[in-house]
């Protein structure tokens, strides 16, 4: 486990980038590049990071970055990896960095294809639970009950279980992470770097702009998402499921914080009813039944 003190001083996400105040994805991007250093080839589809770079002729990234079509991060990764192999370049980590819509909706086909082909790269889905770049429209990863501009009375469907979809591809490494736990994220990225094949990291990245909370609450909201058991930190390594700290303590339901603390802090959940809360709490319990089962099978 790396400590905060051991993190490199070098910055590869430069000052002057164009993210919103309190942007969870930008905070995690900084950590991602600290974790990997500058021998990185970033592939970025249409997403908030398109904007974060800043407009031509400037860029806020000190690593090579290929902007590519919305639905095609996985395919682009396959192309870059093949080209680097032909050029006998073997010390560069190829990273696809895509949002939740670009991953779970329009980009799921190319991602699934790349995973099935075993393309040697790290795919990170930074999940802010809506199409943030276009002004917060509903995505397949928007949670039940959340207001978005296209679900003005709250989304009526559940969020896709994207990390488990990727685990079902039998790739060597799937992990979840959250902006509020930066060292856990750094460690998982570094671990992924040393594994051959397709590695998937699902990063919950709070978005104060879209979640309707104060820009100072990014980390607090991320922590609460994990501490309430709504979002679990885990790894699936070669098929073996393992909960990570602090989620590993939450199999015991009494250790979980009340979900209302999380929902209450965000304007997007203002429309939730008592029945909605009861539904969500039931789903959390079901998720944890599944995690408990998986954890005991793999213990």
């Amino acid at each position, binding site marked *: 486990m790396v400590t905060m003190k051991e993190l490199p001083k070098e910055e590869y996400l430069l000052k002057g980038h164009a993210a919103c105040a309190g942007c969870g994805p930008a905070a995690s991007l900084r950590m991602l590049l600290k974790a990997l250093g500058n021998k990185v080839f970033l592939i970025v589809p249409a997403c908030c990071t398109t904007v974060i770079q800043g*407009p031509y*002729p400037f860029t806020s990234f000190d690593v090579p*970055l290929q902007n590519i079509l919305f639905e095609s991060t996985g395919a682009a990764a396959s192309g870059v990896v093949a080209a680097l192999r032909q050029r006998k370049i073997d010390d560069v980590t190829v990273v696809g960095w895509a949002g939740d819509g670009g991953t779970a909706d329009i980009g799921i086909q190319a991602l699934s294809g790349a995973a099935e082909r075993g393309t040697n790269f790290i795919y990170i889905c930074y999940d802010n639970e809506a199409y943030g770049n276009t002004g917060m429209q509903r995505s397949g990863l928007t949670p039940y009950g959340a207001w978005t501009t296209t679900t003005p009375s709250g989304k009526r469907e559940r969020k896709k279980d994207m990390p488990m979809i990727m685990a079902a591809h039998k790739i060597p490494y799937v992990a979840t992470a959250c902006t509020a736990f930066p060292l856990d994220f750094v460690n998982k990225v570094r671990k992924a770097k040393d594994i051959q094949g397709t590695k998937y990291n699902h990063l919950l990245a709070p978005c104060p702009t879209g979640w309707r909370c104060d820009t100072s609450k990014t980390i607090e909201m991320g922590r609460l998402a994990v501490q309430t058991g709504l979002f679990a930190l885990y790894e699936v390594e070669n098929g073996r499921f393992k909960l990570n700290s602090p989620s590993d303590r939450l199999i015991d339901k009494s250790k979980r914080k009340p979900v209302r603390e999380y929902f209450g802090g965000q304007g997007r959940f203002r429309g939730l009813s008592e029945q909605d809360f009861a539904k969500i709490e039931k789903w959390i319990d079901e998720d944890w039944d599944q995690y408990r089962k998986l954890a005991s099978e793999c213990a």
Partner: protein
Amino acid sequence: MTKRLVDTANHLAGYAAKAAKVKVVAAYPITPQTTVVEKIADFVESGEMDAEYIRVESEHSAMVACIAAAAAGVRTFTATSSHGLALMHEALHWASGSRLPIVMAVVNRAMGAPWSIMPDMSDSLSQRDTGWIQFYCADNQEVFDTILQAYKLCEDEHVFLPAMVCLEGFILSHTYAPAKLPDQAKIDDFLPPYKSGWVLDVGKPSSHANLVSPEWYMEFRYMIQEAMENAKQLIPQIDREYGKCFGSEYGGLIEKYRCEGADLVLLTMGTMGSDAKLAVDELRKEGLRVGSARVRVYRPFPVEEIVKLAAGTRMLATMDRHISFGMEGFLGSEVKASLYGQKDRPLFAGFIAGLGGRDVTAATIEKVAKKSLKMLDAGKVERETEWVDLRE
């Protein structure tokens, strides 16, 4: 040493990718393109071709993988047809906008609905405005030769654009014909190693294709237009150089046949151009002064060549294996647009023929020529667009 063989145009496209020493091929199968990529898969697995073959899950991903690989510094190739090409549409714009010299074989096939696997050019002509150079081939040998010429052209610093080399499904794709493969060392002399305008590399970090404001966007588009104009100058030069090296030459932008002193010149694209030559020979035997001009390069469009051609004849007739619904065939439109500024324009007639694989033989073309000559005698054209061999 030159190798002689009898093979299909699709296989020859595969041989051309091998001869060009392509490093990354990304492809998705679709009839009638399949045997191109099967041939390449054989070459890669047998070790005859030192390349990566990415078996992508869609044509959209095929084009994106080529874009990304080209951006990461290697020569790329793919092939597709019809609906596959349509699915690539968005990525075609990205490839040309990125100024990447990708070469793609397009095995022309009609678009659905209804389903058809037979040839016409509605697939590639629908991609007219994507910023790709478009070649149309008349025989198997030309497919091989044009792919090599296309790499040379696309990787020229005055061009840096992608190109499609189009060949009609089944008429060429699955038809065996004699061909020759030039000596590899000579091909290497003709086509040096991969060159592009930019490569994304660790050590020289940059963001490629990030957001551009209105202050810059138009200039990027103007540069593509300039590159197309440059390509128009270079294509005949490269064709002549290829001819000197390997013996086969195709007239650069337009292949003209017996156009001198012709009352009527028939303008075609692709394999109709081969049949048009046979038709012209027959018509000339009958004392009818007819010539053939096969438009080999559709983008950039050879405006100046069309103007020259028009100056030497009394009538032009186009035959399109394509229809732009609500208007006419593209070739017809472009030929007329090319002549708008000219004072003494020849008579013009446009014909739509061969859609969805309807046979167009030398006899069909003779019929079209005779119909056109009748109009010329009458001094007027009744209908500017006629459909050939249409059921009543």
